[in-house]
């Protein structure tokens, strides 16, 4: 590669934010290498079945992103984990798992989030009882109607969703809201009802935060068209019954009474946790916010600018984000990186 390293950008992560950023860079004529630890691009989108709020097929959306990758001839180094990034003499030296080293004028961090490990909320029984699953588990099951939520080939009769698992919970050290689980829960509740019309679906929530375009409408649709039961109360614990169903304990806080219900499946809407390994923070001197996500220099004037000059942030590595958010952030960060390379910070 003969291009001056000072004019090249490394994009870490080929999820939706990384792809959007790399495409934007490429279109502006800036050379970008995309590093992806998984075997293919797409990030968490590859694990999803349908997307909120319109319940678009995730595979179709993913294909759209992959088409962009192809059309723009993006160089995505899949199966390549970035282990270290260091800034020396104004150049970023990116090291991969295989020990390869390359230099760049700027780095665009788009390595996303980690799903909260639901087993850490032991009281919900994830990993202990087979009928307790997470929202991504449900997406996977819904891809194949032959498995779905069938129990001995019978449709489930009752399914409950638990909102805010691993989010807004000081007991697991995550005080922040993961933003996307509320609407995810509504979308998944509808999906279950659509698949199994006779199944009763209950969503246990603390608050329903329908902030995005079309979210509130979907919530209303879930009530009106699908008859989802929204129960305001946080589930405290789950226990198995003799036949393997799950007994859920909650409080109906609107009535002020304790509530127990036995369900065939308990679905935990898991939140997002910072995906950046601590070692990257340390070697770069990258600052984190209170929740552990990469912090930006100024929320209002410089979102997407990390504490390190020349290192830009896009997507959920900087905090919980939806797909459209991540795409926008990716493009914005690409523009910021171009300005930086051109010396116009």
């Amino acid at each position, binding site marked *: 590669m003969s291009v001056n390293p000072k004019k090249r950008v490394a994009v870490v992560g080929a999820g939706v934010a990384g792809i959007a950023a790399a495409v934007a860079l490429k279109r502006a004529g800036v050379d970008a290498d995309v590093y992806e630890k998984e075997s293919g691009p797409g990030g968490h989108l590859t694990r999803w079945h349908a997307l909120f709020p319109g319940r678009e097929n995730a595979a179709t959306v993913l294909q759209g992103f992959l088409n962009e990758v192809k059309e723009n001839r993006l160089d995505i180094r899949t199966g390549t984990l970035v282990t270290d990034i260091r800034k020396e003499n104004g150049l970023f030296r990116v090291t991969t798992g295989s020990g390869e080293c390359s230099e760049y004028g700027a780095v665009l961090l788009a390595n996303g989030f980690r799903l909260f490990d639901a087993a850490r909320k032991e*009281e919900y029984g994830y990993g202990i009882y087979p009928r307790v699953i997470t929202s991504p588990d449900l997406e996977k099951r819904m891809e194949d109607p032959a498995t779905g939520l069938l129990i001995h080939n019978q449709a489930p009769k009752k399914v409950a969703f638990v909102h*805010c698992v691993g989010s*807004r*919970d*000081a*007991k697991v050290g995550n005080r922040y809201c993961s933003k996307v689980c509320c609407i995810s829960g509504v979308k998944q509740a509808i999906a279950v009802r659509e698949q199994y019309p006779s199944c009763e679906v209950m969503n246990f929530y*603390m608050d329903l935060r329908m902030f995005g375009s079309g979210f509130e409408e979907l919530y209303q649709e879930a009530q009106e068209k699908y008859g989802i039961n929204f129960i*305001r*109360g*946080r*589930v*405290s*614990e789950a226990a198995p019954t003799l036949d393997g169903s799950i007994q859920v*304990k*909650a*409080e*109906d*806080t609107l009535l*002020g*009474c*304790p*509530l127990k219900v036995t369900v065939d499946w308990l679905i935990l809407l898991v939140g997002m946790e910072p995906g950046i390994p601590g070692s990257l923070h340390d070697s770069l001197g990258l600052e984190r916010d209170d929740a552990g996500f990469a912090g930006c220099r100024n929320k209002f004037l410089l979102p997407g600018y990390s504490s390190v000059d020349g290192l830009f942030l896009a997507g959920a590595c900087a905090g919980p984000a939806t797909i459209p958010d991540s795409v926008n952030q990716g493009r914005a960060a690409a523009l910021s990186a171009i300005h930086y390379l051109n010396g116009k910070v």
Partner: protein
Amino acid sequence: MNGKNDKWGFHTEKSNLITLDSNDRSLVNILAEQVPSLNSCFFCGSCGATCTASDDGMNFRLVHLLLRRGELQTVNKIIRSCLLCGKCTLVCPRNVDTRAVIYNLKILIHELH
């Protein structure tokens, strides 16, 4: 329409209205001084859900709200069934020391009484 026939509660004796202007809402401030984490409560109901004495009428969230609204008539009766087992404190997502609140409330009510 009395006794067991009064299933739908046609006879209500007490006004249902919460009159914030006249209710005594000072108790919750005293408690919050003793247990500052009380102010973090966002009434999610985890405490009431996990409560060992919930079937006996104990409900931390409800007690807290009643204090905040100054509706004190039933508070003492509700907390009488608390076993102080501390499970509520273990599940509270806002790290409210719920057990300490009830413990202090028992003492406070006694002192004020």
